[in-house]
């Protein structure tokens, strides 16, 4: 058990067909890969949706057996200052690797938005000078952290969050393969806490399995340590009716269970965002109050009184005349 | 650049034109013994800098007037280099630490440390007792109310540590933003704005020296438009001379360009309240911001101009809203959002008021 490979790595797709989510984008990249002439690309999207995986699949498909020598991967844990960009990347771009005709070496820069502007400027020239032999693939969370000269040399490809159904399907698949005992509410909990991030979902699944054996809702929330969304949902719905007593009872439960005010408030936001029964006006006002309270909490004031004041504001929304 | 403001700035404490009691008291302070840390505060253009330089001259002689510009470089812990320009003479150094933004703490610590260390050599070499008392360097820090909290705490510690070798003179407009710990370590010197008649007196003096014939009505007008800012009044006088001399009593007083621009903006807002007009106003606000006019100033001036033309019944509401937006502007990072919010709110309230007024007459 101690030598077990993390499932995130074990079940990382190696072929395009295995990649979950963002089908259109992935299919588009596959079209490129078949022709061989892939442009420089920037993949942007939230964490855990398959950016690095897709690039690696693409590289494997394009380069086949030369995959090891012809790919250089640098992420944020490597040194990526200006000098490294010039030296390491330039040297790699200059080395000769035998490749099938029309194929290029690939340099993968993960978490590219954390590179300093100076390093990105240095990268710009390198991209141009070695465009005949090397293609670049940058992965980042937000595309506007990449300087414009690089954006104009690349195709920007967006990755979206995975849908709940997609995450669920993959999790069930892994459960079957690994013989994990699970309950329906456990899977629901995993999907909820993952929020479209496959890495998070699989990681939590493995932790729950290893820690508690049976994957049910309770255990998942123990692992993720978040206030149970059902309690929060009830709390919000009582607020929408103006019932402060019921709402307060739940808040008190959560507070005495020891959850941090920050967690409670951010979960209230998450639940309100996705709630289907609240009218738009209430949602708007709720989110507004939650935002202001969150700000107060971050400034250091996360007492039960502040949280209760938030509930009071929420409950009053339905009562106040305009 | 030899503007009247510089030419006629008094260089000695005896030659100051107003707050004379304070001037003689300062003189006594300097000659009596040691100089404590000073915190000089008061509205803009009241004469804080003038008094500080005069005090320094009293202390060190006319050597303080020979100024040179120096560039200093400091390194932060994260190896980042910060450059800052200072104005100094052989006896003092003047710097605005908030120029560098959030790294102001580093500037204060390093600068004072450097000065203190270079001074120690001079102190041991001095024999004369009286001389020894003056063997310190003076550091003038301007705009201390813009310093971050970190910087102010660092300052407080540094003030104590290096008391022997340097004295600080802190300058600001208002002491509210200066932490009490610093206020208690300094001697506070409040420089109030001169009165209208004092300003008129100085304007007349300058006119006489420049052989200009200055009608009293014009002098009064200038003194009033300057709202207690002597620097502005003298600049206005010179600008008026450039625009039209000989002076006429009913000559227009020349306002700074941004004030006129804001006044025009306020008029635009009063003229029409539509989304299109809001768009135009926003462009104007952007113009002001890109020409470096501080958002605080824009807000105040705009509000004043709007209130001049607002009906009393909604004035209270407008001021309350203005306070709310100004508060948010202070806390937030994009002043344009709050300025625009205020203008939009003004338009909405004004429109509402007009509709109600119209309805009443039906």
């Amino acid at each position, binding site marked *: 058990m101690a030598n077990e490979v993390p499932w995130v790595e074990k079940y990382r797709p190696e072929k395009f067909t295995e990649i979950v989510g963002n089908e259109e984008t992935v*299919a588009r990249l596959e*079209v490129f890969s078949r022709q061989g*002439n892939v442009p420089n690309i920037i993949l942007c999207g939230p964490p855990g949706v398959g950016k690095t995986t897709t690039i690696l699949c693409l590289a494997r498909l394009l380069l086949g057996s030369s995959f090891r020598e012809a790919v250089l991967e640098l992420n944020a844990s490597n040194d990526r200052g200006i000098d490294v960009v010039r030296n*390491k990347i330039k*040297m790699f771009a200059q080395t000769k690797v035998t490749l099938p*005709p029309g*194929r*290029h070496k690939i340099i993968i820069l993960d978490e590219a938005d954390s590179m300093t502007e100076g390093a990105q400027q*240095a990268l710009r020239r390198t991209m141009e000078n070695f465009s*005949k*032999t090397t293609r670049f693939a940058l992965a980042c969370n937000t595309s506007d952290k990449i300087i*414009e*000269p690089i954006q*104009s040399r*690349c*195709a*920007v*490809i*967006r990755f979206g969050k995975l849908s709940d159904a997609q995450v669920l399907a993959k999790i069930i698949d892994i459960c079957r393969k690994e013989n994990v005992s699970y309950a329906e509410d456990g899977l629901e909990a995993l999907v909820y806490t993952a929020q479209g991030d496959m890495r998070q979902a699989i990681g939590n699944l493995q932790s729950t399995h290893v820690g508690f054996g049976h994957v049910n809702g309770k255990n998942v929330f123990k692992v993720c340590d978040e206030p149970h969304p059902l309690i929060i949902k009830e709390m919000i719905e009582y607020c929408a009716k103006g019932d402060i007593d019921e709402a307060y009872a739940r808040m008190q439960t959560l507070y005495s269970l020891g959850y941090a005010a920050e967690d409670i408030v951010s979960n209230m*936001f998450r639940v309100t*965002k996705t709630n289907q*029964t609240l*009218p738009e006006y*209430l949602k*708007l006002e709720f989110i507004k109050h939650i935002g*202001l309270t*969150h700000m107060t909490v*971050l*400034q250091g004031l996360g007492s039960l009184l502040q949280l209760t004041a938030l509930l009071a504001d929420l409950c009053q929304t339905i009562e106040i005349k305009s | 650049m030899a*503007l009247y403001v510089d030419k006629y700035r008094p260089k000695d404490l005896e030659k100051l034109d107003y707050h004379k009691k304070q001037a003689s008291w300062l003189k006594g302070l300097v000659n009596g013994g040691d100089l404590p840390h000073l915190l000089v505060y008061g509205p803009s253009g009241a004469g804080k800098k003038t008094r500080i330089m005069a005090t320094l001259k009293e202390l060190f002689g006319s050597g303080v007037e020979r100024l040179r510009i120096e560039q200093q470089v400091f390194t932060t812990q994260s190896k980042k280099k910060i450059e800052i*320009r200072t*104005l100094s003479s052989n006896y003092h150094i003047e710097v*605005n630490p908030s120029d560098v933004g959030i790294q102001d703490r580093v500037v204060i610590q390093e600068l004072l440390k450097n000065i203190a260390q270079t001074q120690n050599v001079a102190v041991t070499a001095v024999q004369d007792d009286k001389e020894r008392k003056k063997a310190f360097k003076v550091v003038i820090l301007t*705009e201390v109310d813009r310093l971050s909290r970190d910087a102010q705490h660092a300052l407080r510690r540094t003030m104590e540590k290096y008391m022997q070798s340097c004295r600080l003179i802190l300058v600001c407009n208002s002491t509210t933003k200066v932490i009490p710990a610093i206020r208690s370590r300094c001697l506070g010197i409040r420089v109030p704005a001169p009165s209208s008649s004092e300003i008129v007196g100085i304007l007349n003096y300058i006119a006489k020296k420049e052989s200009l014939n200055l009608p009293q009505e014009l002098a009064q007008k200038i003194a009033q438009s300057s709202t207690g800012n002597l*620097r*502005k009044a003298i600049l206005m006088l010179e*600008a008026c001379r450039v625009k039209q001399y000989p002076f006429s009593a009913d000559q227009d007083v020349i306002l*700074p*360009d*941004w004030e*006129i*621009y804001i006044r025009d903006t306020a008029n635009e807002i009063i003229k029409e309240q539509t989304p*299109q007009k*809001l*768009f135009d106003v926003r462009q104007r606000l952007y*113009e002001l911001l*890109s*020409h*470096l006019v*501080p958002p605080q*100033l824009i807000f105040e001036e705009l509000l004043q101009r709007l209130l001049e033309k607002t009906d009393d019944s909604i004035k209270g509401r407008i001021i309350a809203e203005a306070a709310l*937006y100004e508060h948010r502007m202070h806390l*937030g990072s*994009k002043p344009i*959002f709050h300025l*625009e*919010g205020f203008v939009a*709110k003004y*338009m*909405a309230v004004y429109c509402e008021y007009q509709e109600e007024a119209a309805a009443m007459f039906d």
Partner: protein
Amino acid sequence: MAKISLGMKRKATESSNLERNSEAQSWIDRFAPQSKEKLAVHKKKIEEVESWFARNLISKKFEKGKAPILLLVGPTGSGKTTSLRVVAQDLDIHIKEWLHPITQESNTAQGSAWREGGQQDYPKESVVEHFMDFIFQGSRYNSLFDNDSQRIILLEEIPSIFLRKPEEFHEALRRYQAFGRCPLVIILCETSSSREFKLFPPEIKRELQIHTISFNPIANTLLHKAIRDIIIEASKVCGKNFTHPMDSVVESVVQSCQGDLRLAVNLLEMNCMGTAKKLANFEKKKPKATKKDSKAATTGIGAKDSSLYLFHSLGKILYSKREDKIIHELPQHLKLYERPPTKEVPEEVFERTCVSQDLFTRMLENNAVNFYGSVKSASNCAEFFSLGDHVNATWDPSGVLDSLAISVTMRGLMFHLEKAKGKTHFGTFKKPTYDRRKTDDLALQVRHEFLMHGTSTEMLVSDILPYTFIIRPPDLSQGQWDVLNQCVLVRKSQMNTRQIEISEKDVFDEDDEVRVGETDFEAGEKVLETVSGAAEEFEIEEIDFN
């Protein structure tokens, strides 16, 4: 291939090896313009470059100690390097470019792994020394490939040490001017940082008489022409692998690249590569798109990936389309706040754009004003922008506050935006132009020039500067004049004229949602044309002034 002789022998060998493999080249290299007529840059700019060459190079021996220096600045993809190359080729001038060498990797084992075949690059020589050597020797001695032709030295990659210590760079430039034998051309891509100001402050520009030519984003008409030319050439050369793009694709490429020709060519390449059959297969394979998506999708592969997507998302928020019926009811006293549910979930729209909260908020703010139906809704919406900024004031490392802030802003907007009575929405989307960093640069300049008068920027700007401008004392330095001219407000802002253009534009029927992608940009294009045309003229006047 253009006659560019480079300082690095390595690149020459590689390029000759791959010349056979020209299919591996990207379109940028393959279809680069070879003659002046093909350049997509405004004719006047090209003439400026040519006249500079005429003055300073052609068969003229300039005075000793005064090697001319030319600076080309401009946004990315505006044609600086390409214009230089083409003009130089035309006039038979050799360009010697300095490329940053690989310095010795100090201690990492990984570093040594990459040193194949004992390639030893440059021994302990510092980058600066290498740079100085290159430009001095390059200017004095011909390379083996040169004949008697003229040469210039090109510097596009500035050693990073000069960014940290600009004085050393200025010193290097001075020495070059004193001893160099041929002109030096420096190309600087202006991003949002203040590199131009640091490296070339006004006093250095004056001292060394550096001529600056500022390139503008490429006008849409020229973009269109360039793209058409490339399409024609590509269809001849690429054969089967090329699919002719639809007009709507070309249109969306032009609109989304915003004057950046390199980006346009890249996008075009993405949309045209692949045989028609493969593209058809691709279309078939796609999952069942909703009716909304299908229109945008059929405009080509690349359409969704361009920055057009950002504008689409803005449209989704700002148009805030709703269903017909009210589903969730509110009690009587809040009846006026009832609305049918919106068709889009704002948080999802924002997440799919993959841009930062800061940029999206600024873009919303810049464009929302076209959608304010009445002053009341304007006031309510502006309130939410203010609120969003307020919520975001505290630093939150986990990023939750960012999402909260944008959520508040977006929902507030969608809720309060109302249609003006009788008018339908209109709007063309623009990127925000206000750049905080330029203002900070200006503030820096003000402090530098007017330090003798005070150290407080606020005091300088509010009192001293406006009056100094009026008084005009005779002993102002040139630098101080520059600053004054930039700081003093012009009464009639240039901006106003542009705004009138937009509001008179066609107001189109907003029933067709996807028209955000189509008709919007027709109107937008006309505006952009007038705008860039006006901007260009304005620019040129400024330069003549020098």
